[in-house]
């Protein structure tokens, strides 16, 4: 992560813009859509507990501390994906988020809700977004006259 950020720093012009988008450490929720409203029925599990998101935060913070980038703005937003069936959702997760899984209890609640008429199943993530600017290393001090 740090090497990737260092490479981006090198590829950007001085004062260039970096927008970073990565998931927060808040677990993603599994929801069912009933009558147009979403109801949470579980969370997405990850074997490593989402440690990579903490590492991403730390990598970015490290480059900021070292004066490579400055933060101009940051925010969070919710990112949702919707499927008509649990199987479609699981296939999508397998393609795009390989270490994510839905535990047996949440799976059962999704199946029950869909059988009872829920129109969709969704996964909702809390995502961090930041606008940073590439800083230049300080100029060497001018020699004393």
């Amino acid at each position, binding site marked *: *992560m740090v*090497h*990737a*950020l260092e*490479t*981006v720093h*090198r*590829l*950007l*012009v*001085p004062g*260039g*813009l*970096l*927008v*970073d*988008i*990565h*998931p927060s450490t808040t677990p993603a929720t599994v929801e069912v859509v009933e009558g147009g409203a979403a109801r949470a029925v579980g969370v997405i599990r990850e074997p490593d507990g989402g440690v990579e998101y903490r590492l*991403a935060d730390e*990598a*970015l913070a490290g480059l900021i501390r070292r004066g490579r980038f400055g933060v101009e*703005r940051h*925010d969070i*937003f*919710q*990112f*949702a*994906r*919707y*499927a*008509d069936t649990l199987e*479609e*959702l699981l*296939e*999508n997760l397998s393609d*795009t988020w390989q270490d994510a899984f839905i535990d047996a209890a949440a799976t059962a609640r999704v199946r029950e809700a869909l059988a009872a008429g829920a129109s969709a199943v969704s996964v909702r993530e809390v*995502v961090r*977004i*930041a*606008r940073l600017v590439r800083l230049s290393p300080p100029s060497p001090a001018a020699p004393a006259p």
Partner: protein
Amino acid sequence: MPVRMDPEERETAALAAMAPDLADRRVLEVGCGDGRLTWRYAARAGRVLAIDPDRDWIALAREDLPPALAGRVELRATGVEELDARDASFDAAIMSWSL
């Protein structure tokens, strides 16, 4: 029906709020995947080089590249650390779920 990714376009809105000034900029997108996000901002950028180390994703993106963006977006299967590009050759970069 396929899985709908961010149909509310909250990611698009968040990116537009963070980077409203991409016009005429040379943009590097790192981790473009199948181009899902790329298509949503590229029309208001100057030129975009969208990269992903996964050749399968890049192949999918090439299939889905909207004709209107064909002269503006270049897709390349590579990681950022292996990218063959000059220093200071981009005005903006987007790390797209890639950290």
